[in-house]
């Protein structure tokens, strides 16, 4: 850079505004600032509500400036507002109410349309089945339930489960067995909880007494659920036996010289450790999901339902701890079964919270869980006690009476209620694949609880 230019720059830095001129500009600027306050800036810092109000006000100001489209715009806003309100209100409609068809034909069909994947479709169909049951339980609780409504609800319930089964059949064909197992487990938890709720209502423990014909329908529905649970249980036992037989026959082919060594065969059927660990992760995810769900719903359900759900979760966690010990001991099969049981316990806890909020918001809702471990077999039973605060002895007497009524024989009835979880968890593969599905499960359960 040239010397002259450097000198020029050095001296140019001495160029300044005259002091008087600078103050004059400063004063005039301050006046300008006072005349032009931060009106817009204040508006931009308003809360969402204020900004929304401003937005709506601006729309109406715009309309008021243009009289011609005023009527059209007002009509459009009115129609949009009314349809939105109707759709939202329809979500809480019950059978027989004016908005119930909107709920079934519009809201639910839109959600069906939006459920694009097979997983989402099955989840939504199960949720719809659950909704139908919750509806009749709500009606029964208020004494407004009619026998025809129960029949219609049962038909819808069957229809939704049928749809879910059809979609599932396709998925199963693609070898997504782990997911199919999870769906079966979800349906099992749903049936268990609703069977007990229906049982309670059938005993006349709702807010208002039921008509005899309605009671008959509800008993029939409850019996239907019991049979389904029993059937599912039988299928699992059968699958277990078949798996065992095929394993034995394979061993016979592998060891033609000594096919009778059962001990050796049992060792060959031990699940690999990754399978058990995959199930462990799935169970832990499920428990975490239900914990979050519980926190979310705590304020909306009765204290008894919360404590019962917490107890089920604690049992699920105990089951996981037990399963971990089994893995360390090298018993992957038992560990797998225990993790599967933890999942079922967590699912039941979640379903209970959903139903408790919808149907029995203020009741002394209480589930009793009985878990017996005998060898490799675990039995799991859920029942609902009376909403009235009976003492323990009264409850025991009642249980005996109910067993007599429901099953025609106390022991048989109890057997029907039981689900052998080790059967459900037997020899399933691809549990690691299921972890990715847990998020979908979360979504569905959350939606279900909020609806």
């Amino acid at each position, binding site marked *: *850079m*040239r*010397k*002259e*230019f450097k*000198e*020029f*720059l*050095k*001296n*140019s*830095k*001495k*160029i*300044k*505004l005259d002091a008087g*001129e*600078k103050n004059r*500009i*400063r004063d*005039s*600027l*301050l006046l*300008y*600032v006072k005349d*032009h*306050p*931060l*009106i*817009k*800036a*204040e*508006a*931009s*810092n308003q809360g969402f509500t204020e900004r929304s109000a401003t937005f709506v006000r601006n729309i109406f100001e715009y309309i008021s400036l243009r009289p011609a489209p005023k009527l059209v715009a007002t009509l459009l806003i009115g129609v949009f507002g009314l349809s939105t309100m109707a759709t939202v209100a329809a979500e809480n409609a019950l059978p027989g109410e004016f908005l119930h068809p909107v709920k079934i034909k519009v809201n639910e069909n839109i959600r069906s349309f939006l459920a694009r994947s097979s997983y989402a479709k099955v989840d939504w169909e199960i949720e719809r089945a659950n909704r139908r049951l919750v509806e009749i339980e709500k009606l029964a609780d208020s004494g407004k339930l009619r026998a025809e409504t129960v029949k219609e609800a049962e038909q819808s319930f069957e229809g939704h489960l049928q749809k879910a089964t059809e979609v599932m059949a396709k998925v199963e064909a693609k070898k997504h067995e782990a997911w199919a197992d999870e769906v079966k487990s979800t349906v099992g938890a749903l049936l268990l909880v609703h069977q007990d709720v229906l049982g309670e209502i059938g005993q006349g423990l709702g807010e208002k007494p039921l008509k005899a014909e309605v009671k008959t329908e509800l008993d029939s529905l409850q019996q239907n659920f019991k049979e389904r649970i029993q059937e599912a249980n039988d299928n699992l036992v059968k699958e277990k036996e078949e798996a065992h037989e095929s394993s034995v026959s394979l061993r016979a082919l592998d060891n033609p010289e000594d096919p009778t060594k059962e001990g050796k065969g049992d060792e060959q059927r031990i699940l690999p450790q990754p399978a058990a660990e995959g199930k462990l992760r799935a169970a832990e995810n499920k428990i975490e999901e239900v914990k979050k769900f519980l926190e979310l719903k705590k304020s909306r359900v009765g204290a008894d339902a919360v404590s019962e759900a917490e107890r089920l979760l604690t049992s699920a966690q105990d089951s996981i701890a037990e399963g971990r010990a089994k893995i360390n001991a090298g018993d992957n099969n038992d560990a797998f079964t225990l993790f599967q049981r933890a999942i079922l316990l967590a699912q039941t806890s979640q379903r209970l919270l959903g139903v408790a909020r919808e149907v029995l918001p203020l009741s002394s809702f209480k589930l009793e869980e009985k878990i017996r471990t005998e060898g490799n077999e675990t039995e799991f039973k859920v029942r609902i006690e009376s909403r009235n605060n009976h003492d323990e002895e009264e409850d025991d007497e009642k249980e005996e009476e109910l067993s007599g009524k429901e099953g025609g024989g106390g022991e048989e009835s109890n057997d029907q209620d039981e689900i052998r979880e080790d059967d459900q968890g037997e020899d399933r593969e691809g549990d690691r694949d299921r972890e990715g599905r847990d998020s979908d499960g979360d979504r569905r359960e959350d939606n279900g609880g909020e609806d």
Partner: protein
Amino acid sequence: MNCRKAMRKTTEAQFVEAYDNYADPLFRHCYLRVFNKDLAQDLVQETFIKVWNYLSRGNEIRNFKSFLYQVTDNLIIDNSRKRKTISLDLLKEKGVEPRLNVDDGKFAALIDAKRAAENLFLLDESYRKVILMRYLDDLSVKEIAKICGETENNISVKIHRGLKKLNEILDHEKRV
């Protein structure tokens, strides 16, 4: 004091502080761009009015210096467009002389520097602008690029060429 008042005061305080800090450098920059004291003062005032209008709409300014120079540059360009291009001869005919307005009067005595100022006036506006921003206002190439809306590479080339041309003018002056 509620939040709105506090916020408003903060914005006002920032604005006044910016005026106190940058009014003189902006005036210097404007003066060496337009070589007219009154016009330079008007440009400074108008710059701050525009900045306040921007702030009052709830906008935030992260780098006051760059923003002020950007507004000033836009105003100078707008001003030159309004007045069209006026040749140096025409300006001289009208009595406009590129003079430096310094308080102490010492600068006027420095003949070489005065010549440099006059020669700077002969330099093309696009070169004069970037050279002033770089060497007088101490703006970085990155800041100049942002202010002018050009790439950093472009600005570097312009600075280089501008200095070269200024040297040629100064050489020519010496020869004459």
